[in-house]
């Protein structure tokens, strides 16, 4: 039996790994879901074919990051998994149903014609929108904390539902739309690109506003978070996070005006990373805010060690072949059917 506990901080490493899996999911499926949210607003059917084609080869592997996030949480922090899943029962089920509709739309739409194709256009949009909204509401509920008794969730079925979580739900919908729009700016040209650029320039302001509201409201709701961000000397060390975010927004605005094609997408990713970092800093060391810490929820050291060996070997390999698959489908996407 091997055990790295004596020389590695296993819970911390695993917290980092799962956080990485989740942010990779948010970014990668985020542009896919965002494309789905924008779908019905596209000017032409040809445009929609292009949008679909741009994500069809990669959506599968993008959603696998969510399975890794869920599976990793179960493996590395079973207690947190056992508390969070029942607490978020309803939004998770609704999110899964949305993702089912969205996922099947890819294959079914390619094979459908006429009226039934419109049906799969609709399920693609509604599924993406629902999944994005629920993910945002889950974040909203998460930052407000959960009521826990012993080793299980002790709150009510609708604890997750309130005005604040609705607000974060809409915020994530806007954020994904920005990712999707800038993705399309990168992957398409002509009329589709022009339209996507206008969408990005428009939704960008909403994203900025929502990030501002969340950044101000989280410290206001919790005195610990307030002192974390605003007490001296933390304020000096953490100030770069909001400042850098503001810079990225400015460059994004500038790039969209200058009709740059690639950089807006990566700037949007940067904005997501910084927002995620901000939430992570605020909630540390809680894994189930504000009841179970990262260390308390950790699985047995030998369990965390076993899977860490696999991650250390396989993650670089995975990133390599996932990168290769993106490389195969590089460049502008056409509206022609695949196969």
């Amino acid at each position: 039996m091997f055990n790295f506990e004596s020389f590695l901080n296993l819970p911390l490493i695993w917290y980092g790994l799962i956080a990485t899996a989740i942010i990779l999911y948010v970014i990668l499926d985020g542009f896919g879901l965002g494309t789905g949210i924008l779908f019905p607003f596209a000017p032409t059917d040809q445009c929609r074919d292009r949008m679909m084609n741009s994500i069809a080869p990669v959506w599968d592997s993008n959603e696998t990051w969510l399975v890794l996030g869920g599976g990793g949480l179960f493996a590395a922090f079973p207690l947190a998994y056992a508390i969070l899943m029942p607490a978020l029962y309803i939004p998770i089920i609704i999110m899964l149903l949305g993702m089912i509709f969205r996922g099947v739309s890819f294959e079914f739409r390619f094979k459908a014609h006429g009226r039934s194709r419109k049906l799969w256009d609709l399920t693609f949009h509604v599924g993406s929108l629902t999944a994005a909204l629920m993910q945002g509401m889950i974040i909203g509920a998460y930052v407000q904390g959960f009521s826990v008794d012993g080793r299980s969730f002790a709150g009510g079925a609708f604890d997750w539902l309130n005005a604040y979580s609705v607000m974060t739900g809409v915020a994530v919908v806007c954020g994904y739309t920005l990712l999707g729009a800038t993705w399309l700016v990168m992957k398409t040209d002509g009329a589709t690109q022009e339209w996507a650029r206008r969408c990005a320039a428009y939704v960008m302001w909403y994203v900025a506003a929502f990030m501002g509201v969340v950044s101000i409201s989280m410290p206001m709701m919790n005195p610990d978070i307030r002192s974390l961000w605003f007490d001296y000397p933390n304020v000096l060390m953490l100030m770069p996070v909001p400042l850098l975010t503001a810079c990225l927004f400015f460059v994004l605005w500038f790039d969209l005006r200058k009709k740059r094609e690639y950089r807006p997408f990566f700037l949007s990713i940067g904005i997501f990373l910084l927002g995620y970092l901000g939430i992570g800093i605020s909630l540390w060391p809680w894994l189930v805010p504000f009841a179970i810490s990262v260390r308390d929820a950790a699985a047995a050291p030998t369990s965390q060690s076993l899977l860490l060996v696999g991650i250390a070997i396989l993650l670089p390999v995975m990133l390599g072949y996932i990168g290769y698959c993106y490389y195969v489908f590089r460049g502008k996407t056409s509206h022609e059917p695949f196969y």
Partner: protein
Amino acid sequence: MFTDLDPVFLARVQFTFTVAFHILFPAFTIGLASWLAVVEWRLLRTGDKIYEEVYRMWVKIFAVTFGLGVVSGIVLSFQFGTNWSVFSDKTGNVLGPLLGYEVLTAFFLEASFLGIMLFGWDRVSRKMHFAATVIVAFGTLLSAFWILSANSWMQTPQGYEIAENGIFFPTDWMKIIFNPSFPYRLVHMVTAAYLTTAFVVGGIGAYYLRRKLHVRHARVMLGMAMIMAIFVAPAQILFGDFHGLNSFEYQPAKVAAIEGLWETRQGAPMVLFAWPDQEAETNRYAIEIPNLSSLILTHDWNGEVRGLKEWPADERPPVAVVFWAFRIMVGLGVLMALTGLFAIVLFLRKKLFDTPWFQYWCMALTPAGFLAVVAGWFVTEVGRQPYVVTGLLRTAESASPVAANQIVPSLAAFILVYLFIFGAGTYYILRLIAKGPQIEDEVFGAHGVDKPPIFTDMASEKGGDHV
């Protein structure tokens, strides 16, 4: 609302429904991915366009099935937590890493290279495309490896210790991964998946032959499927027997339910048909063959087989479900093995591809694999009850603190949504089958076609050169 319903029962129904629905797709895609790899290998070796056309038809069906498998699989990865949080908390240390390895080694491999397999035909070289197909097939097998290891550990746990608060801690990973029932379950399930695919492909091939459509493609489909039926279907009966003997050693209560035996006895009979009555602890309308159970299970005419009354009533699985599911599975297995026997006879008489009754027979057995797989899972999962981890953790004590009024709507939603997408998926698969393989017209002078085919062939056949 719904508060008088038992939440554990509802959670069981929801899990049974979502997992039984899910297993249909991997059962098909595991076999289909491997078969497509073989077809593409034939294409590369022979250069015969027929294999490309067969591949391109079936890869579209693969895409629909794989998509349904992915979306129904994501649901499961969350349902351990949403509905069985106590189970997740207690077994997470043991099962978590196994599921983690499944995601890391298998899911990403399948999902990433699926893109190339489906959409990369013109973007990568022929060899790279073949590699992608092989990688996807390998990924499906790896996935089966890990998930069946986890399930087998729940059936025959070892290599753990239990803390005071009921949490399992791993002590020996090799013992956990390679637990006693795992090798048997892995071989039995992967073979089942291969047979499921073979009978679907064979059934469609038989349908085309009967309708005189795509005859050359249909011969490839039926021919390759019958190779599986001839060699693999009888082997599967053998694998199943080994698996049964393993269960007899480690889970005797399950085997007692399978056999429908209430009393412990020497020279136990094989119950062919009966209606097991759990309350009265007896079988009604039983038809038995004396001593056969003892012979199969102990290889001794008078060997002892323990009956269900050895265990207290609250430790027995629901007998009728296990008993009947087992008979459905074995019955279908026998029909599949018979198919192989017929196929050999017809092949030797050179009538494999033009015997109408055999074509109807194969068409009728198209869904046989799916039914057998689901029935088999009912045997092994219901047979483990009332435990979720054999002898250690009861299913009833594993459920989440989620009330019935949350589960009823989610269960209803899953049923409605699954039926809807399953209906749509079946519809599109049937349309792909109706459309059949698409033949690209080879134009004289086009790339790769350097002679006008009909005339030259006629010419060479006659031995003259008058063209």
